[in-house]
């Protein structure tokens, strides 16, 4: 067998096969064609799921949290990269790598210790006399606005995009475009708004979309810092799989398929736009 054919077979066996088998299994299970309590082909689980308010609120919540986090993180990263563009940051660049070595589970522990009711911020506020006791500190963790989750996501995402934008600023030679615009009478603000930012955003679009997908499916952060209801999509799926009621398993697989279709659709869109 030729080595290229063998490599193709390895690719099919180790990438396509697990992915396809997982998805096909989920499809069969969600339509009642598989499983311990399977009764034959049925749309029952899908109907149940599509009329379930918690599913839609969970999807909406996940989309909102991911969208808000990515927008704020990209905005901060843009501001920082434009601020640092002429500054020799190579030495201080190392600090931007530090949040990247914090796994989500540690990041959630950090957010809990920092923003929680007995956390560092609360202690500072108490010692400054801003709050009278532990209960008067506003809840930023497990709160209804998912603030803890959003802040953690921003904290872990904006350094990545700052580094990315700084590298794009150099690789895309944006400086020379800015000089050209300046020669043609552009103001400092116009150079940023009409030259640098559009080029950076255009170049980073695939990364932004990919990060959006990651944040949409984030698990550890909402599991520890989120609320019981509504839950983000990964946590909701996890809870459906973990219930002792095995009648909920087909619904859990159906929900996984809804999540998968969002991811697949976004990836296809990303590649077609590319």
């Amino acid at each position, binding site marked *: 067998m030729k*080595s*290229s054919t063998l*490599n*193709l077979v*390895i*690719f099919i066996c*180790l*990438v*396509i096969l*697990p*992915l396809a*088998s*997982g*998805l096909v*299994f*989920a499809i069969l299970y969600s339509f009642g064609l598989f499983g311990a309590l399977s009764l034959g082909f049925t749309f029952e689980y899908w109907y149940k799921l599509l009329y379930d308010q918690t599913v839609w609120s969970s999807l909406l919540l996940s989309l909102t949290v991911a969208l808000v986090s990515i927008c704020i993180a990209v905005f901060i990263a843009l501001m920082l990269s434009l*601020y640092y563009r002429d500054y020799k940051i190579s030495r*201080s*660049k*190392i600090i*931007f*790598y*530090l949040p990247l*070595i*914090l*796994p989500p*589970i*540690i990041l*959630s*522990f*950090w957010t*809990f*210790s*920092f923003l929680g009711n007995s956390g*560092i911020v*609360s*202690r*500072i506020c108490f010692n400054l006399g801003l709050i009278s006791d*532990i209960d008067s500190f506003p809840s930023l963790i497990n709160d209804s606005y998912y603030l803890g989750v959003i802040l953690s996501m921003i*904290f872990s995402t904006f350094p990545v995009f700052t580094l990315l934008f700084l590298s794009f600023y150099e690789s895309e030679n944006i400086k020379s475009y800015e000089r050209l615009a300046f020669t043609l009478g552009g103001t400092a603000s116009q150079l940023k708004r009409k030259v640098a930012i559009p080029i950076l955003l255009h170049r980073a679009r695939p990364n932004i979309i990919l990060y959006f997908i*990651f944040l949409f*499916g*984030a*698990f*550890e952060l909402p599991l*520890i810092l989120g609320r019981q209801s509504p839950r983000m999509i*990964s946590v909701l*799926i*996890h809870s459906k*799989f973990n219930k002792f009621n095995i009648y909920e398993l087909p619904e*859990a*697989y159906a929900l*996984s398929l809804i*999540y998968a279709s969002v*991811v*697949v659709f*976004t*990836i296809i869109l*990303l*590649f077609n736009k590319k």
Partner: protein
Amino acid sequence: MKRALNLFLTIIFILPFVFFLVLSFASEYYYPEMFPANLTISHFVQMIQTDSSILECLFTSLIISLSTACLSTLFGFIVSKSLAYHSKKKLFQMICYLPFAFSPVIFAYCLNYFFNSFDLSGNAFGIILAQFIVTFPFALILFMNHWSVNLKASEQLVYTLGGSVWQTYKLILIPMSKSIIIICFFQTFLISWFDYGLTSVIGLSKVQTLTIRMYQYINESNIYFAALGSCLLIFPPIILLWMNKNMVFKT
């Protein structure tokens, strides 16, 4: 102004590391005190003497992550060459993004039946395989963008001069790809090292890795041990980052 901003960013980025280090030595950190009343090494002693399983967790995590990173880098490097020069490269790249973009925990639930059927659940080998299914496509994405016309021309030159496949890899392809190989190893190690979702589902909580143990500590509100676990979890990536700082920062 720039100095102030630098200082602010340095503080917010370094604070978690300092906090975990201090908290792992703390014994009485009560509200509203800003700093712990006592610093002690008793948690470390306790960890080694009584709760020796945390060291086992560290060892298990290291074995799983190193195996996953080695396998993904090796297979990724070899397989990606054929895919990169294939006419359907774009399609392959798109497929590679899917397992990597899926939430690991959801992907794990979809694969769980097969892992159970082949008796791969609840053991380290199963976890390595599950993580490999995610890190291998990632390695393919990294390497597919690396293979270029120049590399192909160099490879063909060796064959023309009578070199074998092994010599081509040993003398040309591996030395010319050294930096991307190290980066791939580093990244796949980190993906595996940080994983909680896949490990918890496929491992059935029988395989205790550091992330699984960390989650237990957080759930039990055992903040001192959670801080200690955090230090252990952060330490290897810091070492890796420090060892490869020139290469990583350049790229």
